[in-house]
């Protein structure tokens, strides 16, 4: 495979895309500084960098959504002036955005047509678009039904629609911005197959990601960005995840979590026969039993959407328990016990929710206000009728320093922090209540490498301090490197619990598909 790329007169063909000295500032922020980039035709070129390193800005410049302050863009050897997305499309550049640009109420056909309707009336354009979809889906093995309503499709299918949209005008360069962020591992695998087909058919793919494993798995060449600058270009075959991580962060990073064996104590948190039936009468969780001891992490693995979210929300008191019992630090909760997130919290449970934007933070509130969410009636906001603003600020500043939240400004809205720093704020808040039991959902989703390392370290430190931790994550690697025991959920049921030391990806993969394994405790 690598021989194919370098040989065959690759030097004679013009570069698919060439950037020279691209710079872009937003006010005082210099998002891109003097960026150079060469993309060979028919190759998969990765761009990796932490959140906020300027990857998205650079892609938006190539795709005409932003205009560079300085620098030149060449497409297929020709200098081009990209002033809008329409210009980019005309130059043969297509883009699949991180957040899909699809109209959910439209059919696939209408979504693909949008922008290139082929005339005043839709009638004739419809036929042409249908033919084009069929042609593209055959050529690049992108199976979609043109008449399906996009809102009914799953994420993987929607992404295929996005790719068809990007390719419909005959794009030679396809930009994929964080394409696997929303996909299950299986869907990501399918996407990689599609990307390989694209390369075979001569399309150059620019893959933007912050996941090292993806870069290593699929790209031919990789460029690393750090703080708005290019930190280096590498042939993927000649680099290593460690080197890439170091280039991204600017210092050595431990990719493997350095952990000591667990020293479990008493059972602090347990569930027996736990079940949840939603208001529509659908059984979402059934017969789940587990126990978590002091000083251990129980990981919950499973393909996304197999009941992990519901389990977390039932345990946190956000949804009612409909069957079985939960025991928290000696207090028993039954299906008929009136409960609430507040009562659960008072029992000594901390909760880092899966979706920090909806359940963890109020994005339009200041950092110091977010830092007291759920603890607003505790002493730190003052005992009287009014909140003690200066105590809130100083408390927030202290926690921000302790958890390396940057910038450390308590008056800034939560929205203006990066994903990693938002997550650190949630963690800082929950950790400082000193919980006896901690529920953690997707602790590193959308978080950059440097912050992942930090969060993992803090979770292990909390474990060693005696906390009982239940960890839900869609990243199997995260579960395998943090958890002491792993419970696998499939279709809302517990497939089994195995020792992390005995777990490998294959066993876990089979369990995630619902197959019981020997040695697993149900």
């Amino acid at each position: 495979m690598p021989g194919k790329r370098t040989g065959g007169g690759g030097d004679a063909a013009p570069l698919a895309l060439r950037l020279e000295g691209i710079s872009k500032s937003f006010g005082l922020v210099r998002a891109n500084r003097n960026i150079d980039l060469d993309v060979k035709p028919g190759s998969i070129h990765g761009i990796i960098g932490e959140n906020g390193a300027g990857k998205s800005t650079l892609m938006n410049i190539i795709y005409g959504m932003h205009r560079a302050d300085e620098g030149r863009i060449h497409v297929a050897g020709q200098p081009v002036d990209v002033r809008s997305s329409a210009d980019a499309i005309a130059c043969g550049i297509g883009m699949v955005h991180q957040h899909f640009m699809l109209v959910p109420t439209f059919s696939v056909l209408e979504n693909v047509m949008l922008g290139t309707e082929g005339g005043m009336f839709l009638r004739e354009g419809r036929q042409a678009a249908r033919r084009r979809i069929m042609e593209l889906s055959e050529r690049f093995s992108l199976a979609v039904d043109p008449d399906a309503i996009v809102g009914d499709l799953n994420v993987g299918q929607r992404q295929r629609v996005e790719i068809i949209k990007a390719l419909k005008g005959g794009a030679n360069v396809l930009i994929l911005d964080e394409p696997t962020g929303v996909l299950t591992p299986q869907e990501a695998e399918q996407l990689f197959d599609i990307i390989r087909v694209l390369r075979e058919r001569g399309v150059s793919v620019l893959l933007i990601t912050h996941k090292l494993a993806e870069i290593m798995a699929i790209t031919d060449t990789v460029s690393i960005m750090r703080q708005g600058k290019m930190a280096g270009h590498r042939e993927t075959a000649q680099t290593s995840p460690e080197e890439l991580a170091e280039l991204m962060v600017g210092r050595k990073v431990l990719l493997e979590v350095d952990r000591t064996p667990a020293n479990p104590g008493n059972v602090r948190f347990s569930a027996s026969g736990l079940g949840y039936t939603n208001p529509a009468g659908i059984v979402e969780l059934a017969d789940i039993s587990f126990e978590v001891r002091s000083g251990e992490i129980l990981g919950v693995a499973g393909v996304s959407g197999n009941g992990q979210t519901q389990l977390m929300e039932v345990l946190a008191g956000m949804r009612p328990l409909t069957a079985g019992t939960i025991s928290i630090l000696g207090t028993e909760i039954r299906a008929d016990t009136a409960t609430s997130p507040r009562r659960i919290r008072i029992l000594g449970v901390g909760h880092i929710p899966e979706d920090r934007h909806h359940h963890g933070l109020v994005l339009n509130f200041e950092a110091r206000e977010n830092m007291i969410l759920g603890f607003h009636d505790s002493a730190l906001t003052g005992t009287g009728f009014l909140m003690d603003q200066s105590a809130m600020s100083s408390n927030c500043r202290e926690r921000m320093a302790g958890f390396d939240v940057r910038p450390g400004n308590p008056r800034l809205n939560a929205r203006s922090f990066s994903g990693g720093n938002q997550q650190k704020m949630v963690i800082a808040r929950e950790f400082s209540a000193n919980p006896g039991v901690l529920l953690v959902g997707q602790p590193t989703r959308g978080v950059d490498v440097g912050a992942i390392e930090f969060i993992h370290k803090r979770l292990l430190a909390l474990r060693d301090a005696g906390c009982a931790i239940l960890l839900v994550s869609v990243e199997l690697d995260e579960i395998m490197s943090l958890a002491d025991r792993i419970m696998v959920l499939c279709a809302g049921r517990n497939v089994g619990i195995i020792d992390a030391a005995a777990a490998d990806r294959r066993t876990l993969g089979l369990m995630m598909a619902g197959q019981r394994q020997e040695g697993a405790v149900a």
Partner: protein
Amino acid sequence: MSDFFFQLLLILDSTLRIATPLMLCAMAGIFSERSGIVDISLEGKMLSGAFVAATVAALTGSAWAGLFCAMGAGVFMSLIHGFACITHRGDHVVSGVAINILASGLTVVLGIALFRRGGQTPHLPKEDRFTPIEWIGVSVLDPVPVVGAVYRQLISGHNPLVYGALIAVPVCAFIIYHTRFGLRLRAVGEVPEAVDSAGVSVAWLRYRALIAGGLLCGIAGAYLSIAQGAHFVREMSAGKGYIALAAVIFGNWRPIPAFLACLLFGFLEAWTARLQGTTIWLLQDIPTPLVQAMPYVLTVLLLAGLIGRPRPPAAIGQPYGK
């Protein structure tokens, strides 16, 4: 029976006349709201249209000149709304209310300045207005029972703007569902990012939607002052813009259902007007204000989810761009 039939015919005839400005404004509302712009300013645009139509018709003696200038006035008000909401990312409701207040005050001030009749415009003679058109064959069909009466009362004998409104509905439906502009319009109200990334200007698309709405509101205004009425009276739009907006919501932002909602609201008003002082049919003792409040009551019930579920365009009211 024949008396009942005759009464019904009169109510339906008057339904059509009452519903005409509602239909025009509802179509205008569908254009702007489908593009993502909250259009509470239908009222103000219609009122400006009414004033300009009456003024121009009075000064030039031409109903057509009045109509065209009214359309221009509607577009002008729409552009103010667009400038505030699209270009400057202002709050749509605040801008809309401002336009309504502006129209309400400005029409009276200009009216007094121009004509010194306390805000009214001079009474227009028949030739300067849009008058009912008698369709051919009325006298031929007249002797035929039922058909003759329906043809004479309901189909024939309306002014051109009534027919214009009736044509506007299918034309709007066609534009929205079967043209390039319509596809983009529907998309921009749902996911403007998708339109932008497809290389289409969100701002220009929304401006065009507002312009289309302004034209229709102008026609509705002209209908009030130079077709149905014979001069401009202060506040003559009398909340019709809001009722049209209720019809848009009631019709789930779709032209044909919104049209039916306009007819329903028109029917309710025609019915109360007919009922006053008469003792026909049943339920004649229902207080008029209650029936007049029906469009609003029905809309509130709808929004509360008691009759179906309205599904507004997803991106409505949200400014777009960095």
